[in-house]
């Protein structure tokens, strides 16, 4: 745990998250946004910034920005303005990035998150603005030369900027997890951290506890895993405190996190900071967002993961842990909802099966929920057979495995494999009587008051039915048959 937690210092953290919008084409060109293509095969004349080319905004990117803006309770600007951020770099083909500066598409939002100990906190969001991604410099592919890959140039991003309202690395990471869950839930972003679809910068400062003025901040750039974000922020908070306590001033600068050495290192100082010379892009008139678009997105907004999570706990009686797992991913949660719709009141049973058998099978096959081999309806059918006593919970797992293997629905598998539970008293009594006859010693023990041997007797009877006996009825009948004369 960070030293800041109990020290005389308070950490103040603001986050900037680049959410890559899940559009097929780029923000201002028709080129594909698919990841992993051969270098420069997905760069159009616009992306290469050939003379005379012009940007035209991607309507789908605007729609996704509106959707996320509504989900974070932001206000959607009916007119936002694209601005040019001017700087020279080889992976910035136009010599400027088209972004939004003074009038972003989303302003004044908020998103709550929950810490491991259950404490909930709300982070106000300053703004979310549309901008295009840069290309990539490729440093290791050529001898004594740097390559430029413009496939990523022009990919649509929504940059979400929080107020400096977070106070620990743990809060920052919990909040990032919440935003990550939300953007994937909404289909706004694929959330792939490795491919850079969700990138985070953190602004960190410390101040004496109780002070209101902010300390000098440093910015940690482009950390690509939640674990490293946490470590980088923790390191940076401790470094700030160490410096301040030693009487040294913090230098405002951008720092990179060195994953191998678990520390942050200076990248560029404020003195080398660019003057970006922002001005409204004259190629792009103010971007209108129609009331109809906002309304249709508002109506189409699904129940959000935090609300669903709360409902699962409060109304369905699931544990916080189960509710969290089930709301990690929209498709899984919707699957749960679909099964539950067939078995209302059995949330715990449904949750257990989804997190148990289904999750294991998906995992083993490396499948997503969308590609499940056992549909929600099929699973509901199976669970219904457990509930009505047709099949035991234990054998139901075999039925599920057969269903997964494509052997058919629950009823078909149960019939074909003869896995139906035996609840016929005459069969059960025959088995029980055979056991009683075969094991007089154990029966004597039980009747002498040794209750522990009862389980062993049940096991013998169950074996005799090859596991298919209805366990409740078997128990009951065995107890009845073992009663001394009344």
């Amino acid at each position, binding site marked *: 745990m960070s030293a800041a937690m109990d020290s005389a210092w308070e950490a103040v953290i603001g986050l900037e998250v680049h959410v890559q919008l899940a559009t097929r084409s780029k923000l201002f060109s028709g080129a594909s946004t698919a990841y992993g293509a051969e270098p420069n095969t997905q760069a159009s*004349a616009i992306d290469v*910034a*050939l003379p*005379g*080319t*012009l940007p035209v905004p991607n309507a789908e990117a605007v729609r996704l920005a509106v959707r996320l803006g509504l989900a974070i309770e932001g206000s959607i600007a009916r007119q936002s303005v694209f601005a040019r951020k001017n700087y*020279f770099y080889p992976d910035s*083909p136009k010599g*400027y990035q088209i972004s939004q500066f003074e009038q972003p598409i989303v302003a004044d939002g908020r998103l709550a998150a929950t810490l491991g100990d259950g404490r909930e906190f709300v982070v106000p969001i300053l703004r979310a603005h549309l901008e295009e991604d840069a290309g990539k410099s490729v440093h290791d592919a050529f001898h004594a030369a740097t390559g430029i890959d413009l496939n990523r140039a022009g990919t649509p991003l929504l940059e979400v900027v929080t107020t400096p309202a977070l106070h620990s690395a743990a809060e920052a990471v919990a909040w990032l997890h919440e935003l990550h869950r939300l953007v994937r839930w909404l289909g706004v972003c694929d959330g792939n951290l490795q491919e850079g679809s969700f990138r985070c910068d953190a602004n960190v400062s410390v101040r004496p506890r109780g002070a209101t003025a902010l300390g000098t901040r440093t910015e940690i750039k482009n950390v690509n895993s939640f674990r490293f974000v946490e470590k980088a922020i923790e390191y940076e908070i401790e470094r700030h405190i160490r410096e301040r306590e030693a009487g040294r001033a913090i230098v405002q600068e951008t720092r990179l996190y060195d994953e191998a050495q678990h520390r942050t290192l200076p990248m560029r100082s404020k003195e080398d900071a660019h003057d970006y010379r922002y001005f409204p892009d004259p190629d792009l008139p103010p971007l209108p967002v129609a009331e109809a678009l906002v309304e249709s997105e508002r109506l189409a907004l699904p129940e959000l993961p935090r609300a669903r999570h709360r409902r699962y706990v409060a109304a369905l009686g699931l544990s916080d842990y189960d509710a969290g797992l089930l709301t990690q991913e929209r498709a899984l949660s919707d699957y749960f909802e679909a099964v539950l719709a067939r078995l209302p009141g059995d949330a715990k049973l449904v949750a257990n099966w989804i997190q148990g058998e289904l999750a294991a099978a998906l995992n083993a096959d490396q499948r997503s929920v969308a590609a499940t081999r056992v549909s929600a309806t099929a699973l509901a059918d199976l669970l219904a057979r457990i509930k009505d006593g047709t099949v035991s919970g234990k054998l139901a797992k075999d039925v599920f495995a057969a269903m997964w293997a494509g052997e058919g629905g629950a009823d078909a598998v149960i019939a074909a494999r003869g896995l139906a539970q035996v609840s016929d008293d005459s069969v059960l009594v025959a088995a029980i009587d055979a056991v009683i006859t075969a094991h007089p010693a154990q029966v004597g023990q039980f009747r002498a008051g040794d209750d522990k041997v009862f389980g062993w007797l049940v096991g013998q009877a169950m074996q005799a039915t090859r596991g298919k006996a209805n366990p409740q009825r078997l128990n009951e009948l065995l107890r009845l048959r073992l009663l001394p004369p009344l």
Partner: protein
Amino acid sequence: MTAPPPVALAALARGLAERSYAAGSLVELALERAARAQSGLNALITLAPERARVDARRAHQHLASGTAGPLAGIPFAHKDLFCTRGLATSCGSRMLHGFVPPYDATVVERLDGAGAVCIGKANMDEFAMGSSNEHSHYGPVRNPWDPGRVPGGSSGGSAALVAAGVVPFATGSDTGGSVRQPAAFCGITGIKPTYGRVSRWGMVAFASSLDQAGVLARSAADCALVLSVLAGHDPRDATSVDRPVDDYVGALAEGVAGRRIGVVRQYFGAGVDAGVATAVRGALAVLERAGARLVDVDLPSLEESIAAYYVIAPAEASSNLARYDGVRYGHRCADPRDLADLYSRSRAEGFGPEVQRRILVGTYVLSAGYYDAYYGRAQRVRRLIAQDFARAFAEVDLLAGPTAPTTALPLGSSDADPAALYAADVNTVAVNLAGLPGISVPAGFVGGLPVGLQLVAPAFAESRLLAAGHALQQGSDWHRATPAAHWYG
């Protein structure tokens, strides 16, 4: 002025349709004249005979099969800032020397679709920055009326080619007067349409909020025919306006009877040559005889337009030209030591002094701490100018004045004081700042050099401009005058 008057574009088209001459022959004539005139005028950067012959054959087939477009077989030249697929597009700059675009500008596509045959790419001031056509990597263009004088700019090559009778029309672009001023200097007609009327897709950008493609031709009627082809919405340009295109040719007959023409006092300011002012008033008298009513109008904010323009245009240019960095295409310096060296030497070698001057000014006015004082203020002035025009157009149908304060200047006269040359744009730049359409039509001669009358109309009233220009040309012969010198022997 002994040469015969030029043929109207419509008559040329008729001649082609009626097989009085073949498309191929007409194109050969233009190619031959262009080649011969090159040493005297330097009006072309690239002559494209093979490509022109292919296009002429295609036009010939279309004419034969009755599927020809309205300009089928008519030779013309593109200003060298319209991207032409497979044909070098230099923008008059060493930076883009040898650059061959992989795509066509919308203007190029549309003229192609109409059957017109591009014979080559016209010389211009580098990146359209200049009003004398002396700022070209390919050397200055000479004025066909007097080879010791400039043709105006930045569309100087286009204007010279039309004035010399090499081609009946040429494309141009107008950011602060670059179609109208060379048209005035060369004694031809040039129209700058409303901002957004003609697509900017594929037109190399100078100042995006001001740039507009235009036409240079012999007459308002010829401009009407060509503009009909160019105008229209283009989804590839977000600033292109989606509204129907008027029937420019049909509207020519509307004339000026009953039109109120505001004679703008500020257009006849201190810098305006007395002879030019007299010639322009003479042309206005022709319009009056055709039924127009002249009224005096004040546009006080025009006096601030030069300052506003020379902040906004360089600001946008500084950003638009950042892409020329020697990395992906264009000029790259030899053996760069590092990235900073690659950038600074490639750009220092690739851009001429006028372009560098404007990039520096533009970078400065957008800098932190100066933005509000310069760029922000210039934008406020720009709004005032637009309001001034709107107020004037509540009273009058058209505004009028000299296109330029003088006739064509001698070559080299701008070298000493660039600011003086900027000041000469005073009558044209406000029209771009307000996004309005403007036309320059021949209005007589001073000392054997042509004078231009500028008419300005409300947004999208190009028909009104063309009809007024046509009315003037029905009542005068200035547009039929041709230079005495035979540039192509």
